[in-house]
């Protein structure tokens, strides 16, 4: 097999470069080389969404996504969502709705909500539940998350 490989990509709007080993995942690289803690490995099987990262605008499971696939891609993580100290409206909505307990799943849910609202600016309960079914929250803040998504949708629509 091949050895380590150099890749370049855009990370939260800034150019980034990394040397990645075969088998290293995107979440490994973000955690170990960029000290980003928002995407985190839990199930490591693509089943829980705790490791969600946006790659060229698509939500991927960072635990399964080979880091070298990120070569040339635009990577966005929860760390890039807020504008400086100003939280993104989805983050605000999660705060206000109390849409988490331990917070371990929260970055994944927030990024998935971003995708959801891009596709469905005015989602009903059914759409929300189906769209977010791949994200697991063992604290089961699900009802509060649904409320947060609706709140965020309203805010984003109002902001036009």
């Amino acid at each position, binding site marked *: 097999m091949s050895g380590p490989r150099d890749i370049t990509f855009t990370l939260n709007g800034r150019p980034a470069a990394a040397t990645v080993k075969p088998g290293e995942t995107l979440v490994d690289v973000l955690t170990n080389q960029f000290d980003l803690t*928002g995407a985190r490995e839990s199930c490591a099987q693509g089943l829980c969404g705790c490791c969600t990262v946006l790659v060229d605008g698509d939500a991927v499971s960072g635990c399964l996504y080979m880091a070298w696939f990120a070569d040339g891609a635009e990577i966005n993580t929860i760390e890039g969502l807020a504008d400086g100290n100003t939280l993104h409206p989805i983050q605000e909505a999660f*705060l206000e709705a*109390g849409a988490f*307990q*331990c917070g*371990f799943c929260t970055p994944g849910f927030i990024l998935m909500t971003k995708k959801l609202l891009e596709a469905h600016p005015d989602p009903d309960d059914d759409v929300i539940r189906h769209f977010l079914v791949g994200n*697991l929250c063992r604290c089961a803040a699900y009802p509060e998350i649904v409320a947060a998504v609706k709140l965020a949708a309203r805010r984003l629509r109002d902001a036009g």
Partner: protein
Amino acid sequence: MTVDDPAHNISQSIPRLEGRQKVTGRAEYVHHLRLPGMLYGKIFRSTVPHGRILSVDVSEAAAVPGVFRVVTIDDIREVLPDPYYGPAFHDQPVLADGKVRFAGEPVAVVLAKDPRVAAQAVALITAEYDELPSVDNEVEAMTSDIHVHDELKPAASFPDLNHLKGQSGTNVALGYKLRHGDVEAGFAAADHIFEHTLTTQPVMHTPMEPFVSVADVRDDHMTLHTASQGPSFVRIEIARLLGWPENRVRVKVPFLGGGFGGKLYIKLEALVTALSLLVRQPVKIALSMEEQFFMVTRHPCTFNIKSGVTKDGKIIARACEVIWNGGAYADIGPRVTQKAGFTAAGPYDIDNVSIDSYAVYTNRPPAGALRGFGAPQIAWAYECHTDMIAREMGIDQVDFRRKNLLRNGRPQASGTLIRDAALDAVLDRAAERLGWSLPFDPGGGRIKRGRGLAVAIKGITAPTTSVAIVNLYGDGSCGLYIGTVDMGQGSDTVMAQIAAEVLNLDASKIRVMHTDTDVTPYDMGTLGSRSTFHMGTAVRLAAEEARDKIEALRVELDEPAGSNIPLSELLRRKYGMQAGNIIGTGSFIPEYEKPDPDTGQSRAATPFWGVGAAGAEVEVDTETGQFEVTRLISVVDVGTAINPKLVEAQISGAAIMQLGFTTTEEMLFQDGQLLNGSLADYKIPNMLDVPRDFRNEFVESRQQDGPFGAKGAGEISTMALSPAVGNAVADAIGTYLLDMPITPEAVYRALHPADGDA
């Protein structure tokens, strides 16, 4: 202002203090911790459920480039001569010692700088075992001549287990007994006798942040960074293992990515400590989701329950025998056995009760605490049983429960009086929300509908201590030093509210220190719905002491009583600059009387009563057995809700978790091997599993001696939920299921018994 004066912090849904860190992904978890020079450990596990270890060959693994060292129990012994730990029994070795007792038990550890290298090397280790017959089922284990342990090794910290020391030839780690009245005379006097045996299945906590600990042992002190709900216990137990004084062991806990009772006592802490001591470098072990299933589980139990009832529907006798499958190591199983055993007869006023509750060893992964300390398992049995009695006698299930319910002022079976327990209120509310008195559409044809409810009670682990420190700094800002671990339940916020209320501050401005045993005082643990009551009281006392000291300072500075000069100004006047502290401490242990070992009788067996009810509606497809819980109501007595929104989230989260334990979650074993240890095969609830009509409420109530009238709530909605669902399914299909979980397959089999196993 008096303490009980409602000011501006209590009963307010103040947002979580740490919320911002959690939505930005920057909250600190041990999961992310990396220390300079740190090695990663990966575990090689037993493949047999019971066997003597003949040999472990680590040579190939040790030769892998990048592997620092491979460690077995022989290496551990170099640094820990007696490498056994456990809260109730010192029965668990840091790594398997001569024998393995469950498939999945840690046998060796590979250490490497790169966790992938360590994982690859683990795959090269081989072990040979002399396989022994194994025992899997708790009922068999009671009498089996297969013994999981050669002798019992009770820990000194549980004086009530001392008599078990050195016992051999048994799997029974503890027998708990309660006797109230004369149960045989009660049965003799009864008009009807009902008897059932119900079971619950093994399940697992599956916190999204899997178990993780990092140890950094230096020459004369050590630091453990660990995802633990009980840092004070960890310090005491690690100090004992090392033979060090407590002040040389520092345990630090940031946020936890979920705990649910799993991250209690010693989990990975002893292993990483031994490894770091051995290699003189920091060592981290982070389990995978799959490995978590080998760490700790929830006790399955088999419960035989028998009741004697008069013809007018009064329960006059109840005998309970509960056998708990504790797995290979006792962990906190003996406490589960006692604490759940003690309320095994349910929330009913019964003159004659006998309870026998047994913790038994089997060749399964160890079982420990999980959101309820056994209370949900026993409630499954006593509330289905109670429902069956009412139905067979033709009495309305709510009326039957009301007729028999314990009321404030009456003694529970242990002799401890019921007080501040809103049993009627929670039952009435659940019935009302379910529209119990209204006509119900039972469906027709293929789809049948049913509804059910249940009410349950639990005692709280006792006696336990909490200590708190309130520290006001030179500028008047406030730090709160507590050992309660915020694992998502919102304790930081609630404790800040209590301190703020006493000190007349704004709760959101208080900083709550994360547990660091070098800095934060003792707390028995974040468990068993105890924090709001115990730590909440300690925080109240600490804040009151600080408030008294501020008053004393005012007097010293000749300020008139009640003057509103801020503290910062007072301190500036006293010290001539921004300096000094006001420190208040508070320590709380509730009243407790040790139960009589033969009768379980005690005047103060629990500091408060956990009380909850649930109601459910289901729709069953009678052809396939598929069913849906269409409506789920949980009602909890929380005393005063200090933070209504947070407590509602606890009720809701615990209910959804329990719905998983009721309908989809089950660790499946075959020949002692776990078959489904991954989220792919072990199904925890997702968003679509939340019932359409899902309500979580608390009733108006007050715990007289709780902080501002509050009591604990984190576990309470787990208790009545399963039997409520089970009773609803029975209402729909006409048959009670006795074994958890309630699956479509089980429903199908109940509906089509003739189809058999073919």
